């Protein structure tokens, strides 16, 4: 057995790493996983950079930010696979909830345009939105969604709040709304301080949320362990995508060593059956979080480019250069090499037009066919990495 140190932040999307350990997928590959619970995203990055972790659970835009020089000067970090899509929820405080209801919004939880326009109608002055990290899928989702619903950049104040502290930030009136990964949105609902407005998937059907990130030096020097880890995590993701396993997964994740919360809370996001308000309204969000299904774990280079272009435009960097740099850190080559033996479906191309699939689609794969999950944006936005950069 070879021991690998894996860092994770306690969220339901750490499930593939925890399940790989708990259900023996890692052991089958000859690996013992030392799972290290982290308190901050910056801690994941720094410990990985210093070689104190062999792999880390990270927000997908983090390795992009590192590639663009927006983080500290640490050794090159590569994202070898996506760990999850979706899993986030947008929530508003009780005051906004009341105003939205008074204005006739139905909290249907599936229509990002209706929710965004309703919000536009009741908000005066800047809207303060809590996000877990400045380099996060949540931050990009919120910016894209609210810009498309008529909020100017100056009318939006994105504030970093660590997810476990989000509920307190709402209670203290520091944020009006927030977007975080589960179970922290449900936690705020449970405390009677917020109502869920949308799942992240209503904004972007297949928003990549977390990735498995390793040092490039590690993937070069230890290909055997890299491959073993990727296969163990991929099999855990496949197990997790069976709806019948989600309840068990919630039980495992909720243990004191991991999330240390009531299983009922983790179960909401994992099953996509969410209590959206203090009044107990329940909404079903099919596909609220996905792990492997429909090539969800494939680290499309076009995703790296999409985040890189957005970050570059915000930080005054050259978008073309940023896209090229970021794409080199999404390792489709390692995904193919290490997951081919496990029988993972492999798409013919390594980049695509993001947001182009309104529905699940069957496409040609390296061997036979495969299904790609729908990945549309609510406003029909598409991103072609080969097209010239433009602000959006």
């Amino acid at each position, binding site marked *: 057995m070879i021991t690998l140190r894996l860092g994770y932040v306690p969220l339901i999307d750490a499930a593939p790493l925890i399940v790989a350990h708990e259900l023996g997928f890692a052991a089958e590959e000859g690996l013992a996983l030392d799972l290290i619970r982290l308190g901050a995203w910056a801690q994941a990055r720094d410990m990985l950079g210093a070689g104190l972790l062999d792999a880390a659970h990270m927000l997908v835009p983090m390795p992009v930010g590192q590639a663009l020089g927006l983080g500290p000067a640490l050794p090159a970090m590569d994202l070898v696979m996506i760990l999850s899509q979706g899993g986030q929820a947008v929530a508003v405080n009780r005051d906004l909830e009341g105003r939205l209801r008074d204005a006739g919004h139905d909290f249907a939880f599936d229509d990002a345009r209706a929710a965004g326009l309703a919000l536009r109608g009741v908000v005066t002055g800047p809207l303060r939105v809590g996000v877990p990290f400045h380099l996060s899928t949540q931050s990009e989702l919120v910016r894209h969604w609210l810009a498309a619903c008529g909020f100017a950049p100056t009318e939006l104040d994105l504030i970093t709040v660590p997810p476990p*502290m989000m509920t307190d930030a709402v209670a203290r009136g520091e944020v009006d709304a927030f977007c975080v990964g589960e179970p922290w949105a449900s936690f705020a609902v449970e405390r009677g301080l917020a109502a869920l407005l949308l799942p992240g998937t209503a904004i972007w059907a297949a928003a990549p949320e977390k990735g498995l990130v390793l040092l490039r030096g590690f993937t070069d020097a230890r290909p055997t362990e890299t491959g073993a880890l990727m296969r163990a995590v991929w099999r855990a993701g496949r197990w997790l995508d069976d709806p019948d396993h989600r309840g068990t997964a919630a039980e495992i994740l909720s243990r004191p060593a991991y999330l240390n919360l009531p299983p009922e809370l983790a179960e909401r996001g994992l099953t996509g059956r969410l209590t959206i308000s203090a009044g107990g309204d329940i909404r079903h969000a099919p596909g609220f979080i996905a792990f492997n299904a429909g090539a969800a774990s494939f680290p499309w280079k076009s995703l790296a480019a999409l985040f890189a272009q957005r970050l570059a435009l915000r930080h005054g960097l050259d978008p073309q250069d940023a896209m090229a740099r970021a794409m080199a850190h999404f390792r489709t080559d390692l995904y193919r090499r290490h997951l081919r033996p496990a029988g993972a479906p492999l798409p013919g191309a390594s980049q695509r037009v993001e947001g182009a699939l309104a529905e699940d689609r069957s496409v040609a794969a390296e061997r036979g066919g495969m299904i790609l999950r729908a990945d549309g944006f609510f406003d029909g936005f598409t991103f072609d990495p080969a097209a010239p950069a433009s602000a959006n």
Partner: protein
Amino acid sequence: MSKRLLIVVVEPDPDRAQPIADGLREAGDHDIRIIAEQSGLARQVAELRPDVVLIDIANPSRDILEELALASGPAERPVAMFVDRSDEGMTRAAIESGISAYVVDGLRPERIKPILDAAIARFHMFQQMRAELAATRAALEERKIIDRAKAVLMKARGIDEEAAYALLRKTAMDGGKRVADIAQQLVMAAGLLGR
């Protein structure tokens, strides 16, 4: 003569914050402020305009400070996670000890070193204390579980406490396992069997 540095220590626990501040005072004539309240951290730090910010590497509030690292307005002071390329050992030692340092742009590494060295020493002390506490707790837990396992055996086999412990120890030794692990398994099995 270089000017005094303003060092901010972000630490909610006063029992930890004080020793860190004391250690830093010994390291040089600096102005040291402690921020315990996590709310409005970004604003507090931005207003103080410190030269160095020290914070536990696992403190979730670090993610708030990261934003300041990207501040780029003319009036803002860029703060960056301290990584010294010329002395990777020091960066690693800091991370290993559980500390992260944010420093303003342009502060020379030789000015940061004594500060970081003092902080690292304190954080190592905390780590040791935490490890000892965890070990004590684990030992207590183990004793409890062994007591419960002994009770199960005494009842099931009608033997006395000493014999029950001897049986546990023999089983553990034969299986190449720890007594506490055998006890844990026995208690769990007894639970399953409904006794």
